[in-house]
């Protein structure tokens, strides 16, 4: 069973501990131009996770602050992995979607394909690589929670089997009316390992809510399966046509000769 993380956005206090833990565990440099927390925080090649500060209106119309942790969602059927033509992205059975730099060609199709624009690129490097959160896969393989999850002082996260977490999330939002009736990640692009619950509608928090419920690789699977057959059939048809039309021309030439004779 794949592991996942349940994020309860109502509990986040915006301390940013998780972003620090991420930097330390993954040995990522700090970047003064791109802070990991605040209103303008954004994912970059060095920031694998950030906490965005959002001023929004709550149910009563009062302005409130919400803090949104962002990172790769680790899709159940990741578009990035199905897009990569060199297998540099692979989904593990434990859940994380990981990146193998030595396989990467740098075509950046993964970046274009990811519905949430997660993979980032080292634009200033001579030989740049793609980067993104890997859900601390070495920890997850051992059954431990990712670095960010294990340091949260506010109890925002729960790490465990995704299906269990989903059940729990459902019961939380059923019991407590403050939550919106939507678990982000349950069905988005076929489901993701990271699940979010919130008291403010997700689109107001910058989540991409208008994504398909279908798994993205399913859009290309049928196409890719059909290709060899189309190729072979087309080859047979062409060869047939080649001989047929050649012979037809020959016959019509012979006929012309006969008529003239």
């Amino acid at each position, binding site marked *: 069973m794949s592991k996942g993380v349940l994020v309860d956005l109502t509990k986040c206090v915006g301390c940013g501990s998780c972003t620090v833990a991420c930097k330390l565990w993954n040995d990522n440099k700090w970047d003064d131009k791109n802070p990991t927390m605040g209103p303008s925080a954004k994912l970059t090649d060095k920031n694998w996770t950030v906490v965005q500060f959002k001023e929004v209106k709550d149910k009563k119309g009062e302005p409130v602050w919400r803090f949104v942790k962002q990172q790769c969602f680790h899709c159940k059927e990741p578009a990035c992995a199905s897009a990569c033509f060199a297998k540099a992205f692979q989904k593990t059975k434990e859940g994380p979607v990981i990146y193998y730099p030595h396989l990467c060609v740098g075509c*950046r199709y993964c970046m274009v394909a990811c519905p949430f624009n997660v993979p980032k690129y080292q634009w200033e490097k001579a030989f740049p690589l793609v980067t993104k959160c890997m859900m601390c896969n070495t920890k997850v393989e051992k059954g431990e929670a990712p670095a960010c999850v294990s340091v949260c002082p506010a109890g925002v996260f729960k790490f465990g089997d995704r299906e269990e977490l989903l059940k729990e999330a459902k019961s939380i939002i059923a019991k407590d009316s403050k939550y919106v009736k939507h678990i982000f990640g349950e069905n988005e692009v076929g489901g993701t390992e990271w699940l979010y619950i919130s008291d403010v509608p997700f689109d107001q928090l910058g989540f991409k809510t208008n994504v398909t419920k279908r798994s993205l690789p399913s859009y290309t699977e049928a196409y890719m399966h059909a290709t060899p057959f189309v190729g072979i059939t087309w080859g047979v048809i062409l060869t047939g046509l080649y001989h047929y*039309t050649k012979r037809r021309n020959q016959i019509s030439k012979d006929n012309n000769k006969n008529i003239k004779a």
Partner: protein
Amino acid sequence: MASHAQAQKWSFKMTPTRVLLMLLSAVAVGVIVFRLVTGLGMVTNLSDEWPWGLWIGFDVLCGVALAGGGYGTALIVHVLHKEYFHPIARSAMLTSLIGYLLVMAGLFLDIGQWFNFWRPFVSWGHSSVLFEVFWCVSCYTTVQILEFGEIATERIGTQFHSIFKKALPVLMIIGIIFPTLHQSSLGGLYLLMVDKLYPLWWSPIIFFFFLLSSFFVGPAMICVETTLAGKAYDHWVPIPVLQKLIRISGFVMIFYLLLKIYDLVSRGVFGLMFSGTFEANMFLIEMIFGIIVPIIICFSGFSATRKGLFTFGLLVSCGVVLNRMNVVVIGMIRSTGVSYVPSIWEFIVSAGLVAMGVLAYCFIVENFKILEHDDHHGQAA
């Protein structure tokens, strides 16, 4: 020209235009070297929001489509044996070969780990549509070089000529299968972008639209090319030949248009095209000037004139270029939230690649038997 081909000396006329093209190529080569050494960040305006820009959009997607004239002509002339179209076969295939070499160059430039370019040959990401594009484009370029061997051995390495000649039918057929597959795969790349590409362009059958348009743009490119070559070398392909050829385009374009309308209606986004948004207007320009007007020209008397043929060719080619750029850039602006304008260096490199292509074309036409055929002596008119 025949005498050129027999003469042992290589010839290359110098004209002011060619000097200019050479300069442009030289500058582009400089930028290319700089980019390969320093990475993509300093030379391009690409960013995390715009991982794909002009080089993929123009050099690769447009290049491949415009080079599609080769496989269409090969199909018509060598498989269907419509000997009638023979006078254009060689030049169409040459343009196509040059086109593909440029596409390979463009791709190579655009990848970050360029020394790793061979990786997908051993690490099979076969679920990726790009995997198919990669294999097909590599194989097809090889096949085209071999096909060109038949022409080249008329002049150099003549002892191999008969081998190439014998291999030609097989090469031709392989050389039609590959492009059929990857022309559509280039569109197939965008199947994944269902929530990113504007619905006027995204479609579950976008690969089929790419295939159709790469097919009908072939004859259009041939019209443009033969007009230019006609001016430059005083070699004129007979009007009826070209007219018949673009009729084939015309019918495919009508089918394309109907299919497009059906597709938009069935997805319930037909109305979007009149919504007055930037995307809608770009889409209308593409459809009206790239498809509808050319169809009218194609089936009217205007197509019986050189001007008409040239206009047709130009409109259709530009229409397809616009379509590809709409998919890569315009259709993605809304989902990325920012827009992208290529840097001056990106433009210079793209222009430089085209310049190199033109120079290569001129050189080969002047030194090999491309434009003239035994059965069409003295067709100049």
